[in-house]
């Protein structure tokens, strides 16, 4: 414990914790939409092509954080414009992802000293975040939250009830692209902690956990943020007290949250709510 308190005095630890807060809030707010819109595959594509972007930017001497954002934002636009129809969406995502990741491999091999940074990007780290990064991450997080605040209601409508939303004049297709861009920001943020390959632990699990706890959209967002905060900050503190990588703890904590919600808390809440008994029998 003393050791942990000592560590909190280091700047890299403070950066990690501040970044963790920002990242968890963005991931937690975005996650319920990712779950409700069935977009896990898209999240993965944005993440892996964020990696390509970061690798490319490092190669030409630019910031990897910017590269992440550029890579996933470009991918978001590709998927949004090419894959408007749900039926063709997965194949569009798949083919864009395969091509982009191929480029990523090329960038890695061109930059021989890259192995360490590649490992950090892929699996996450807590000491990769500089003070400048924290400011940048906070800036784009605020932008993402403002954008999501503006589109929150029509996006909810378009997500759960697209036909009627369209009939009521909601620009369903344009909102899909806006949401992909918001997701690109969330992905670039979450990669800082959990890495490219474990991205789903912050963008799927909190939303999927919240969905088990409440049928109210507003409450689901609050629960999702709480789960993301608990896993991120808890994961960082556990990583500091041991020497294991942070993503190990974040993924374990979030999986644990989901299991508790699914098998213990969710059924207990459902039993108290209207139609709870029916819920259990189906």
């Amino acid at each position: 414990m003393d050791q942990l308190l000592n560590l909190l005095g280091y700047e890299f630890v403070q950066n990690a914790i501040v970044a963790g807060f920002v990242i968890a809030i963005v991931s937690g707010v975005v996650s319920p939409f990712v779950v409700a819109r069935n977009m896990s595959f898209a999240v993965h594509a944005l993440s892996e092509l964020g990696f390509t972007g970061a690798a490319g930017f490092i190669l030409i001497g630019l910031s990897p954080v910017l590269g992440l954002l550029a890579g996933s934002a470009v991918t978001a636009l590709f998927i949004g414009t090419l894959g408007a129809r749900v039926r063709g969406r997965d194949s569009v995502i798949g083919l864009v992802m395969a091509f982009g990741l191929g480029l990523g491999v090329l960038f890695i091999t061109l930059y021989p000293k890259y192995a360490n940074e590649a490992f950090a990007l892929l699996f996450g780290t807590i000491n990769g975040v500089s003070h400048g990064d924290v400011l940048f991450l906070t800036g784009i997080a605020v932008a993402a939250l403002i954008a999501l605040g503006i589109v929150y209601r029509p996006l909810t409508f378009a997500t759960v009830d697209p036909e009627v939303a369209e009939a009521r004049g909601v620009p369903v297709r344009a909102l899909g692209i806006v949401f992909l861009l918001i997701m690109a920001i969330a992905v670039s943020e979450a990669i800082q902690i959990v890495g490219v390959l474990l991205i789903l632990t912050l963008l799927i699990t909190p939303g999927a956990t919240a969905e088990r706890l409440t049928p109210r959209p507003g409450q689901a967002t609050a629960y999702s943020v709480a789960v993301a905060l608990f896993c991120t900050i808890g994961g960082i503190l556990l990583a500091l007290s041991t020497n294991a990588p942070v993503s190990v703890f974040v993924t374990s904590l979030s999986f644990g949250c989901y299991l508790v919600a699914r098998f213990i808390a969710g059924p207990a809440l459902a039993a108290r709510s209207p139609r709870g008994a029916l819920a259990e029998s189906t």
Partner: protein
Amino acid sequence: MTEPAVRFEGVTLAYGRRPIWADLSLDVAAGSFIAILGPNGAGKTSLLRAILGLVSPTSGRIEVLGAPPRRGDPAIGYVPQHQHFDAETPLRGRDLVRLGLDGHRWGVGLPNAGASARVSASIASVEASAYADAPIGRLSGGEQQRLRIAQALVSEPRLLLCDEPLASLDLRHQQGITELLRDWRERTGGTILFVTHDVNPVLHLVDRVLFVVNGRWAAGTTDEVLTSEQLSTLYGSHVDVVRVHGRILVVGETPTGYAAEEPHHEPALVGHERAHL
């Protein structure tokens, strides 16, 4: 005669070079219940989409409540075909109805007493108060569809567009939904356009029918339109219209025998003039 709720003037709609329907001219009287009939793919849904302003006609003019169609018109309520909500959909019945009131507006949508009261009143009017707070995905098809009606009515529309709202519901729920629509029309004097492939569940409510087949159409009362002669002309092949036990069956000859309701044949020409519904 008062202003029609919907007016079509020589309207043709085409996707690419394939016409959906051609030269449609008719007036839908305010306060009437119109059934829009025809086989699958005849363009019944496109007709509703044109009224909603989601597709533009290739030629001709549409007027809705005295003005050109515009997207998101709050005077139009829309009830889609029943599609079951996934059991885990994070939404209560109440939230679904609320989306019908202000879901199209920007922003987060904070709690609002006035809006909540309107939502509750709409839910009460379809007798769904008992289960409006349950997760929508846990409700039966009939319960979900009642909430969809509440969602369409909460913005106090004057025109209600229903796209196969009874499909995949059992007979009891079909009757329940039909009664709600009848009550709403009597209470408000609103107009209902009701797309269906089977006219029987709403036969007692229908003022006029519009029958669409492969771009051709015929309009009038059920007795005028649903006859062997009229439908044979529309389909371009022999079709029998049989009335039995108060139900109307459309039976057509197909290469493999006889098919009820939906004969699939090459169309032939049918002449038409302006219809008043």
